[in-house]
């Protein structure tokens, strides 16, 4: 699991309250969408790289994510480069031959737009990973409770997250057991065939989850769930002075950037 995997650490960013952290995250996302100029986006991306180095997140974490994203990313850059109708033509994909063509102009504007989208995705992935990798899940839950969401809802969220690895193990065990009976999961082609091949995996998993939820329900009650309406929050988030400062800092950066974009800096008109 990449999401919700928390890597403990002692850096300032780790210790920061969850609220300035979420403010930071929102700022980054807004900035990534306000600016169109890939050079501005590169700066944001570079700041995230520096941050991830500073909070000691192993680069492998991102690389494994990138591996999954590689093909869609190439596709996005390529699509923009080939199909955006820009002015500055660099070359044609299909050159002029015997009076035909030339077709499909690759333009500088197109490439730049491709990079804009590329960096936006990279920034989103990096920022959300940085947030979840440095923040234990119970900080988010504590925030939910601070926002006066019902305790039951916070409990549902925690339990769901807690059982992801359990269900994953069950799924792997089932897949192994059916493979040992000659199931051919990879070889199935076509929608119906795939569905049919996965029935022997899905049913034991569903039944298992139902059995589990039965025990879960009993175990909850046996530990007093629902004994009172006002149950105590074990984790409370308390903002320190520094957290107010960080929130202020992030919001100022956001305001300054919005100002820049309003007076037309970094909105990408250079490349249009």
């Amino acid at each position, binding site marked *: 699991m990449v999401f919700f995997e928390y890597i*403990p650490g002692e850096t300032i960013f780790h210790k920061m309250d969850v609220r300035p952290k979420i403010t930071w995250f929102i700022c980054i996302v807004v900035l990534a969408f306000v600016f169109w100029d890939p050079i501005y986006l590169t700066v944001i991306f570079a700041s995230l790289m520096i941050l991830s180095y500073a909070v000691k997140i192993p680069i492998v974490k991102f690389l494994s994510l990138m591996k999954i994203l590689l093909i869609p990313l190439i596709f996005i850059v390529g699509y923009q480069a080939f199909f955006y109708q820009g002015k500055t033509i660099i070359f044609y994909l299909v050159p002029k031959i015997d009076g035909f063509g030339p077709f499909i102009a690759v333009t500088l504007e197109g490439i730049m737009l491709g990079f804009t989208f590329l960096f936006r995705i990279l920034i989103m992935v990096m920022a959300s990973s940085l947030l979840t990798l440095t923040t*234990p*899940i*119970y900080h988010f839950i504590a925030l939910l409770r601070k926002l006066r969401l019902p305790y039951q809802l916070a*409990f549902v969220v*925690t*339990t769901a*997250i*807690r059982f992801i*690895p*359990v269900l994953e193990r*069950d799924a792997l*065990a*089932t897949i*192994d*057991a*059916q*493979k*040992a*009976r*000659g*199931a*051919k999961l990879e070889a199935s082609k076509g929608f119906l065939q795939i569905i049919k091949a996965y*029935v*022997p995996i*899905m*049913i*034991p998993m569903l*039944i*298992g989850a139902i*059995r*589990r*939820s039965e*025990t*879960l*329900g*009993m*175990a*909850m*009650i*046996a*530990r*007093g*769930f*629902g*004994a*009172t309406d*006002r*149950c*105590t*929050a*074990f*984790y*409370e988030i308390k903002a320190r002075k520094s957290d107010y400062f960080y929130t202020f800092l992030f919001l100022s950066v956001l305001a300054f950037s919005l100002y820049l974009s309003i007076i037309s800096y970094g909105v990408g008109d250079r490349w249009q």
Partner: protein
Amino acid sequence: MPRKIIEVENLWYKYPKSDRPALCGINLHVEEGEFLAIMGATGSGKTTLCLSFNGLVPQYFEGGEYSGRVIVDGLPAFNTPTQKLALHVGMVFQDFESQIFGTIVEEDVAFGPSNLGLDKEEIIERVSYSLSALRLEGYEKRETDALSGGEKQRLALAGVFAMKSKILVLDEPTSQLDSVGKEEVFSTVAKLRKDYNTTIIMVEHRSEEIAKYADRVIVMKDGKIALEGSPREVFNRISDLLELGVRPPQVCELALSLIKKGFSPKFFPIKEEDFRSAFPEMLIKKHHTNFDLSQDKGKEEVITVEDLHHMYPNGVKALNGVNLTVKRGEFLAIIGQNGSGKTTLAKHLIGLLKPTIGRVLIKGLDTREQTTGKLAKIVGYVFQNPDHQIFATSVKDEVTYGLKNLKLSKEEISERVSEALKFVGLDGFEEHHPFLLKKGERQRVAFASIFAMKPEIFVVDEPTTGQDYLGSESMMHMLSKLNETGHTIIIITHDMRIVGKYVRRAIVLDKGKILLDGSTRQIFSEFDPLKRCFLLPPQITRIGHELGFKGEETVLSVEEMLSRLGD
């Protein structure tokens, strides 16, 4: 005179939509500070009785039929809300995975106290009190999912203990654990009794530990209490126990056989260390046995494992250079602690895992070049939990699944299905719904579905875990029968008694390497190396060791021991 903390009077209970009652007139008293063990075959009503103590029976199930009285610490369990009873009775369920709610340890322990609406300071104090009682100090910030089985079980206990209830009810707390985990749980429970005078009620199949720790035992059958008394009173009624699906400690079996032969003990021994003082005049006859495995010599090699290393994608090195050859017709056990690499090794034998370094040959076929589907024709792999594979709506369809994957003809399939069901003793169950069968029967359905594929090698992961005595014996009898007809059998197990009784060769894995490999007798004679990887030979072997049967004279079963004692 200690006071009665639980009183059960003529309790009857029938689950909704069930055709027969689960409890039929239970009368029981539990005293404060007592350790009561509940034993009996699966389906005899043990868990239902436990659920009646904290009111989940009848309150959690709508429409059940309940009569009689259960008074817990002065409160009627019938209509006191379970949440309120939780302050008096803590319950730890069999599936410990389903009762851990927090993603980190302290959060989980705090779950119960938070539900009660206690002050934050009080909760913090209870978390640390509970973690120290369960010897989990320093675990506060650990992730719950990364804990070992024994640690998870202790965490489940800690979560319940933080409610400060005087009674702890534990439903088969050790059935999924290795010997280290079992020891952790029993010694922790003993500590809770000593330090906090906690009343313990434990459902447990392991009679040797019960003999050592419990004050009183009840044995249930069909919703009734069939036997009741101190461990000494209960464990000398061996013929009754076997009928009730309970295996007494081997020392009791031995003592009773000796009494039948005309010896009279000073007292009836229920612990291994009591045997010598119970029969001080017993003569010990030297007897010649050896470590030989001659019956398996000179046969064709069916499995060859060469310098096998395996590293999981997360970087964990599970196997570090395993070399192993298995000949046709061998009966082999792979033993070792959790995490020693047993299952990783076994999964290589059917290609579910491929070597990182080295190779595995199954009848000359390199597993790296074969699919699991192909290898499944030679190697039948029976998984520990049948519920991970059962998906069909009838027993017949379930067994048919593998055969369809083999693309056999209709006639061939129906012939094999009936043969397989006959072999496991489920003929006549073709049209039954597998989910409605008992656990032991589901296990046999899973076994039949592999048997029908007619593999010549069987790999069975934990054939006896979570089964009662009768279920374990019937499973081992099936494997022995297959072995007699020339099949190669490999089991993975924590149960040393069945290794001693049924298995000819054992290999001990430790940290991904083979530490010992030889005849079972030879392996069980190596007390010190076994101890270093936390393995304990069966009780009868240990008694034999005390009596001087060491090395090649190591004793493996009660029958063997009897032939060496006499006048």
